[in-house]
């Protein structure tokens, strides 16, 4: 059996439509829940909600196209890491301080030679 006849005989239309509805419905409900999750958590923790926190690029620096300026700005922020550090730790600092595009910024800093590999997965800022 082939063609539309085979689809009908094996209940294909019903399976396709039901399956589509289940997946769309399931993920829509999940999306709806997670979009409200912070409000639900806020309600239960009974804390005053902070205003929404937005990530803003520091000053007017184009961190991706001007790694020189980015390095100047970010170097002091990572003083706690010491002279050598792992990129994962640097990423965490960038993320904690809400700096934009942490992955891409680190990549741009590496490409521009501002982050120098020391071996064993450690890096340091260019002196």
């Amino acid at each position, binding site marked *: 059996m082939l063609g*539309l006849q085979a689809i009908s005989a094996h209940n*294909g239309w019903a399976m*396709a439509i*039901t399956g589509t509805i289940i997946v769309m419905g399931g*993920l829509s409900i*999940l*999306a709806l*829940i997670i979009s409200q999750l912070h409000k639900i958590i806020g309600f239960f923790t009974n804390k005053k909600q902070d205003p929404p926190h937005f990530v803003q*690029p520091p000053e007017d620096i184009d961190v991706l196209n001007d790694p020189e300026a980015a390095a100047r700005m970010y170097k002091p922020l990572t003083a706690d890491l010491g002279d050598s550090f792992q990129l994962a730790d640097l990423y965490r600092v960038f993320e904690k301080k809400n700096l934009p*595009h942490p992955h891409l910024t680190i990549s741009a800093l590496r490409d521009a030679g501002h982050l120098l590999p020391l071996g064993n997965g450690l890096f340091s800022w260019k002196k």
Partner: protein
Amino acid sequence: MELFIEFLKNTGYYLADIRYVFMICVGILFCFLATAKKYEPLLLLPIGFGIIIGNIPFFRGFGLGIYENNSVLHYLYFGVTSGLYPSLVFLGLGAMTDFSSMLARPKLMLLGAAAQMGIYFTLLSALALGFAPKEAASVAIIGGADGPTSIFLTAKLAPQLIGPIAIAAYSYMALIPIIQPPIMRLLTTRKERLIRMPDTERLISRTELLCFPIIGVILCCFLAPASIPLLGPFFFGNFMKESRVVDRLAKTASTSVIDTATIFLGFTVGASTQADVFLTVKSLGIFLLGSVAFSIATASGIIFAKIMNIFLKEKINPLLGAAGVSAVPGSAREVHLVGLKEDPGNYLLMHAMACNASGVIGSAICAGVLWSFMMR
């Protein structure tokens, strides 16, 4: 002399025919693509070498082949046929996934759902072409662009097709840079590709990251209990990561466990492509339908994003729809690159990763749904 001739008759050189040679060439091609072109090397390399091993002809009855009881390869292959390896891969995948970008942009999850339309379109196409329902469901799941999910469902429904379906699924995942960009360009205008997504995002709290895997596993697995073997470990792995109290376990899941599972999964799937069981007309049909499934999945996501734009004030870049397939992170990277080509300042990667993550969940739900349909 007679003994020597008998020995020669038992060698692979004597037993080989053109089919085995062809498959070994395919294995070498996979190894070449993995090493020289760096196309999905973590997958193509073990599969490619497995294909070479699996297609060395041998004297039947020695307990050597993957389909012979008590052979070493047969025991390793048990992890595929039982669905063990895909579950372990999902455990590691969960421990590696950062859901914060998805939690910050929940509406993009819908694109991950829309991209699963390729699965159901292919189900209908496969049925129309004469595949049995269980085989059609196994072929259709290739549209999810998720190798472990495809292998898992095929192992449950049509184990005889694991070889071609796994090879098709992983091949198309490796060919994302070739398959997806033309579809993206065909279905979007330059103006649409230039749409910039807002750079600002809500900061996701640790509590949200902790709650998500629990909410996700309950909601998805109650909806489609057959997806428990995939989504259960997936969300468990993610919970370990986000809890930050079992770093050792999370690290093991995201490194040793997933690496071990990937090695054995790829190698044994490759070895299961013995020429005599792999080179069939059905395999050719699977490859053709697989490419259709993958293309339709990509197109569905893009078209759905365009439909969403009709209703949204803040427009979505429709390229993101292509990242709704669950090939992580290949499709997200491709969306990002296509966006960058149009506008070097347009960074779509994090938005695309949100679609990608929801695509993983969507395709696992689809697998569970199809499995439960076929169990009736």
